[in-house]
């Protein structure tokens, strides 16, 4: 995946994993994003969406957060449940040196484990 110039430069990447509790995951992710921004002054975030919901229907779960955001640049990319793609993506982000965290629904243990194995901090929701 080629990142967007400007919008995905000096950004923080957040992997959102959800099946049934998307809106809870989105709220936790947004709080985390605000905390990171306050700490690091980062204003650009890319959400990678790991979910069983097809694109663009997953957006229904994130709508509240997206509609209330007026402060940060947000880029949203769909991953689905393709574990190979996710694994490659994590490696790519890690090798680029960008900050990366995961916010994952508690019953998506496989995703959380994969992230943790690759040294990514995971917040379980």
């Amino acid at each position, binding site marked *: *995946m*080629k990142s*967007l*110039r*400007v*919008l995905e430069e000096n950004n923080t990447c957040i992997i959102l994993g959800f099946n049934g509790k998307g809106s809870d995951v989105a709220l936790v992710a947004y709080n985390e994003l605000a905390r990171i921004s306050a700490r690091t002054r980062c*204003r*650009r975030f*890319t959400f990678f*969406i790991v979910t069983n919901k*097809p*694109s*663009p*229907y997953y*957006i*229904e779960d994130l*709508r509240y957060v*997206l*509609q209330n*955001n*007026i*402060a*940060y*640049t*947000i*880029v*949203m*990319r*769909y991953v689905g449940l393709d574990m190979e793609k996710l694994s490659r993506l994590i490696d790519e982000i890690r090798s680029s040196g960008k900050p990366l965290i995961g916010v994952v629904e508690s019953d998506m243990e496989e995703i959380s484990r994969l992230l943790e194995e690759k040294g990514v901090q995971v917040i379980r929701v």
Partner: protein
Amino acid sequence: MGKYEVVLTVDRSMMSNHHGKEFLGFMATGPAMGIPEKLWQWLAAPKIKVDSEGRPVQAPYGMRKVEAVLIDAGFKAAIIDPDHLHKHLDTMKVMMVGHHDYFAYGPPSSEFWSMTGKEPLNRRLFIKFMNSPVVRKAKEKGVRFIMGGPAAWQWLWELELWKKWGVDTVIEGEVERVIVDLVQKALDGEELPDYVYVGPGDSPSIEEIPVIKAASVNGLVEIMRGCPRGCKFCSVTLRPLRFIPLEKIREEIRVNKKAGIKGVILHSEDVLLYGADGVRPRPEPLLKLHKMVAEEVGPKGDIAWAHASLAAIKYAEEEYGLVSKLMHEYILNEHRNLLGLEVGIETGSPRLAKIIMPAKSLPYKPEEWPDVVEDAFRIMHENYMIPAATLILGLPEEKPEDVVKTLELLDRLRPYRSVIVPMFFVPMGALKKNMWFMREHLKPEHIDVLVKCLEHSIYWAEEIINRFYLKEPYLAPVRLGIKLFLRFAKRGLKSLKPTLEAMIRK
């Protein structure tokens, strides 16, 4: 036949100059009322002239900016009229659409929709456009669709249509700094993000905002971006305040003049804050701006303001006599007998003003808001400025006594020439079921406001039409159409109150 790989386009409700009269464009935000839809559409959004490639002689300003950025970056890009898209099917790889109100969820479309139960024209035309054979063919051929503009957020509520039409990316915010790379990636067949929100930190600088390459609708030119009022709910205010230099404004006016447009609409969230000291207007930059504009358009060209705040109107006049000065020295003459603009009243309740818009009355206190509104309306009336004013009903913390205050303010505004449009503050979930919203949220005192606004607006619209508007002989059919509608609205006024009361009783 075609030669453009990036095509910017939109449906007819936006791709029109509305007979050269911007206010007529608002008719596209409602369904046909009292006259056949075809006539309504012709009144609101007639077809625009195009060249042999289907490029319109005038196009929406925001799209012109994006077009200019892409052309400057070396893309083969152009705005194409929706009726001429077929000429570019062979070359088009990216189709970009910008809109003010894709699905009629914005004001005042949603109000018209709620009150009449009929889909507004803008929504119908956009859906028809996206379902058209040429757009479907483009998708089949692998053209990538990027949707943007001020109403981009509405796609978040139309996921079925997003999927059905194969939209690739929805982008919100000021895009000048970032759009080139997104389009390049679309052309290169790269994976695109579903959604992008360009935050205020990535807003373009003055240098990054290009001069438009071809004419904008009715000569609209931007004079500033951002707003210093700092309202917490508004994204515009978070963006850096940028005053467009006079030279750049002049260049754009000349682009428009070259295309035969005789007038200028100065666009800003608040025209009187051009070059201001915070929220206090300053005479010097405003006088220079209007002097330059008047010189450019000459004595016969129209001049209009997009928006101004009521507090700035009062302050500018009372401190410096500035409104009268601008109107009498630069705007009014034997050919220009009015200045149209939009203003926001929002509420007549000081209590509510303090909660929802504490900065809107600055430099006056929110407690003084009704007086600020009336003083500004008097100043505008005396200076032949005709405002289209908005009110918001149903705000989350609104109480019946707040609406009564708004009714009292409407009585005070009766003597002043204006059109007042009530809008509902609509939580989006409710909007999805429009009639439900009306039944659940409409209160008896709201009905009184709706009726009073309509009475006020019909009374003054007749006076405006008879004395000031649509005087040009070639606009006689438009004038007739508007008069027919006003007659229908006047007749409907008698039955409006009982109809709405019956609706809330159900």
